[in-house]
């Protein structure tokens, strides 16, 4: 029974914390948000497989924690908790802080709801809450870039929401029930798959839909971007797993498309990211690249190049790893800990991302390779890209002015790094490379990146930095034009009626009136007489 309560508490606690944030003073409310992540964390660790029923909510909500999703929930909860903790120091106390905390709490609740919900309505509710509330995190600073990023983010979110709404309606109409396909096993019509891909692709940073990500993450305050990059991206992946599971027959070309988009994402993002000047932009592009890999894995499974079950397990492992590592990296940007400790932490996270042995990253990469052997070479090449990004990011963070030390931020950063380190033990994933060559292969990218980075910085080569958000730059002129065209004022106020001149009725010519009446008399007399005469003949 307590598990069911725990499950319900997971999404509800953050909401309460958000409400508390509206009222309580700054100090207390941020801690409240951090504590709010606890039930989800505990549930993730202990309550795998638990179920809960909320008949009243929306169309009757059913919550269930899939056993293999539990570690993902735990990791994401840890990320949200750490971000909240970090936020207590990072977010300046101002009129907007209350708004930030409310958005933070609602997003956290939305995220947990998407992980737990087993009926489309509440899943969609959680997903929408997560998407719309996250706007508050992106546009928090209120600077021009923040508002622009926010606007782009909002447009994509709305598109995503509409796509998901249509998909869910189609599914519900097709199977006359609210349970997701993963349970009913009924494969939805082809259109649904593409809509789901679009809807979740926006959230997961699938290539053409990723443009908002490099714009949004950097402008958000550090804890917010940690949460955004670490946790919210995963909602897209989990969504695809639940609603477009590899086990079901995908429509033709769906798998291939996913693979190719994944690859483009993985390599393109790496190329674009390396030249950036802001460490958070680099990390953002790293996220796009990593998500590209995961999506490619899903595509492979859908395309039949990989077994559904191991692919699913590999993706979930990837989710856990990327959440912890990426969040740690983002918090590291202003970790508040002494320089050396930050560097060590960042190093661990970076190595893990590149898949170095003894790290969770290695385990994830190995699982992916095992699930889809054909992806092996791609993964290793991608690892080089990631390594380059990591080197660039670390380099930028080191050259950055040292941030004020703050114990709370340090503890938050430390918690994440510890979590990352201890995860393989918890998950009993094999992190020790079986053969020497595998170990060498795992280490090679890191070493090569270090050498390349060191060499480039010596030669003072300035790579031209493309504007962050690349494709969206093209979209701006269209957006502005649309804005102007809708400015036509549709008001339909008619011209005021000219006030009737107030002249007295001109006294009508008396004689004329009498003559008119005379004519009228003639006509009426004749008409009535003829009618009466006519009546006789009827």
């Amino acid at each position: 029974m307590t598990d069911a309560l725990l499950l319900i508490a997971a999404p509800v606690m953050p909401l309460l914390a958000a409400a508390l944030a509206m009222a309580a003073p700054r100090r207390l409310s941020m801690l409240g948000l951090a504590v709010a992540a606890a039930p989800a964390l505990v549930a993730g660790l202990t309550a795998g497989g638990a179920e809960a029923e909320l008949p009243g909510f929306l169309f009757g909500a059913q919550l269930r924690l899939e056993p293999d999703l539990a570690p993902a929930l735990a990791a994401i909860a840890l990320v949200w908790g750490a971000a909240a903790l970090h936020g207590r120091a990072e977010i300046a106390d101002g009129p907007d802080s209350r708004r930030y905390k409310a958005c933070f709490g609602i997003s956290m609740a939305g995220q947990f709801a998407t992980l737990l919900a087993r009926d489309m309505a509440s899943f969609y509710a959680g997903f929408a809450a997560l998407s719309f509330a996250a706007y508050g995190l992106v546009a928090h600073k209120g600077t021009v870039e923040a508002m622009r990023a926010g606007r782009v983010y909002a447009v994509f979110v709305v598109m995503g929401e509409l796509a998901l709404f249509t998909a869910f309606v189609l599914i519900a109409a097709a199977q006359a029930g609210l349970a997701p396909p993963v349970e009913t096993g009924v494969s939805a019509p082809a259109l649904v798959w593409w809509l789901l891909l679009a809807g979740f692709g926006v959230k997961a940073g699938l290539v053409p839909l990723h443009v908002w990500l490099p714009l949004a993450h950097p402008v958000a305050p550090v804890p917010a971007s940690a949460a955004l990059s670490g946790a919210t991206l995963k909602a897209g992946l989990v969504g695809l797993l639940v609603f477009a599971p590899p086990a079901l027959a995908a429509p033709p070309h769906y798998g291939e498309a996913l693979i190719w988009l994944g690859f483009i994402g993985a390599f393109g993002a790496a190329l674009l990211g390396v030249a950036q000047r802001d460490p958070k932009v680099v990390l953002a592009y790293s996220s796009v690249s990593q998500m590209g890999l995961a999506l490619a894995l899903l595509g492979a499974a859908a395309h039949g190049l990989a077994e559904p079950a191991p692919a699913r397990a590999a993706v979930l492992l990837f989710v856990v790893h990327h959440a912890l590592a990426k969040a740690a990296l983002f918090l590291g940007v202003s970790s508040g800990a002494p320089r050396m400790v930050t560097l060590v932490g960042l190093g661990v996270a970076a190595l893990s991302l590149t898949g170095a042995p003894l790290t969770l990253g290695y385990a994830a990469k190995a699982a992916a390779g095992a699930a889809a052997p054909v992806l092996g070479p791609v993964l290793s090449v991608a690892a080089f890209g990631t390594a380059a990004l990591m080197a660039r990011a670390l380099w930028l963070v080191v050259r950055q002015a040292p941030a004020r030390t703050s114990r709370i931020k340090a503890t938050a950063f430390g918690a994440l790094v510890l979590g990352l380190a201890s995860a393989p033990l918890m998950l009993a994933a094999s992190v020790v490379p079986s053969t020497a060559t595998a170990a060498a292969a795992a280490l090679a990218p890191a070493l090569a990146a270090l050498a390349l980075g060191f060499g480039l910085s010596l030669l003072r080569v300035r790579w031209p930095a493309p504007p962050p958000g690349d494709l969206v730059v093209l979209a701006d002129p269209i957006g502005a034009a649309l804005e102007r065209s809708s400015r036509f004022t549709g008001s339909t106020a008619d011209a005021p009626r000219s006030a009737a001149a107030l002249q007295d009725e001109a006294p009508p010519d008396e004689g004329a009136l009498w003559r008119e009446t005379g004519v009228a008399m003639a006509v009426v007399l004749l008409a009535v007489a003829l009618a009466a005469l006519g009546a006789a003949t009827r």
Partner: protein
Amino acid sequence: MTGSAELLPVLIVGATLLSAAAIFPLRDDQVRLRAAVCLAGPAATLALVGALIAGVRSGARYEARFPFLPGDDLLLQADALSVLFVALSSALWLVTTVYALGYMRHGPNRSRFFGFFALCVSATMGVALAGNMITFLVFYETLTLATYPLVVHKGDAATLRAGRTYLIYTLSGGAMVFLGTMLLHALQGAGGFEVGGLLAQAETRPSDAALRLLFAILIAGVGVKAALAPLHGWLPLAMVAPAPVSALLHAVAVVKAGAFGVVRVVYDVFGVTLADALGVLPWLGAAAAITIVWGSVLALGQDDLKRRLAYSTVSQVSYIALGASLAHPAAAVGAILHLIHQGIMKITLFFCAGAFAEVEGVKTVSRMAGLGRRMPWTMAAFTVAALGMIGVPPTAGFVTKWYLAIGALEADGAWVVAVLLISSGLNAAYFLPIVGAAWFRPPPDDMVRPEPPPRLSVALMAVSPVVTALLVMAAALLATSIFSPLGWAQALALREFGFER
């Protein structure tokens, strides 16, 4: 005449009439007394409505018949659909009165305002409880008259011109309904609203052409008030009225009466099976779809907040007509639900618009930046309602759009889903920038603020939108509980409209 239990519908209409009569003679400066009377009216009505709901749930049939015209009687009858609308009206009347007491602090003719306010609601109750087309026509026209003085409350040249247009539209609408009723009476003789449609179950029926003509006339008549596409011109102009009136007009009374009329005509006069057979429903659906898109597109271009909300209403109300035009239980549920949900959402938006104008002097969208900081609670309510209009899940709007979409798909009207999407997208396009600017942008520096109203009226004007916003959330969160409109609408769809699930 009628048994004692059957008098409940008459009592409801009577209670509202009585409160109107009590308010009119009050002088403008008797503020406290008028406030008491103003609140007593809706409270009493709510109690009566509660009793009515309990009665109808336990299956009692209320019917009060009065001889009126040779061959036709005034029939007040409480079936499930009317109780739903009566509940909405009386609840929102109470909230709007609280708001109006805060809003109408000074200025002449306040007793007249509240008097006609109550009269307007009693006409709406009448429309809801009408048992046949004659009674519907009587209260439909009374509604027009009761709302005219509210629309022209300010009395200057602009409002009088707007009032003139408003009357020309609604009177012509009333004339069409009169024609329709006359035609129905000529073709079918006296007959009330029947479960499953009066005409569907009549043994002898006139030719299809006559029925199509009748349908067109009746729909045109109620379409004026329901602001269907070509007939919606009056609605944005009626924005000259004070905020509580626009709230009442758009959320509770006039527009809903039109939409309620559409539902009555389609389901109770014709019966959805007959209407489908006649092939008139696609036309209604097309008109509704055009209105939805056209209303939203126009709303995009409006800088004046209330005018933008007005066009949004034009678009949103046609959802009901759209739902009614899809001969399918889920769509029917969606239509009836939207009758309620659009009411609570739109009333919240208008409350907020009125509060912004009164407290902060902000009337246009371009000056709404930074409002979130200065009026957080009102802006929060506005945001919830705006999200509801877009159809974001945890709000009432989502529930309606969900059912409408499912109904459309199962009635193989896929294009309807497309319309819903376009409309949601457009809603987002004209609501989200407002919410974004209000929360995330600093207020414009050249703010000229009117002298702040007394604390009590600011509080009253803040409480009402928050309450209705909570209703918006509750309608979704507690959707499946017995008291929610959804449960009620589902039972209605099955029992009242003769759908076999």
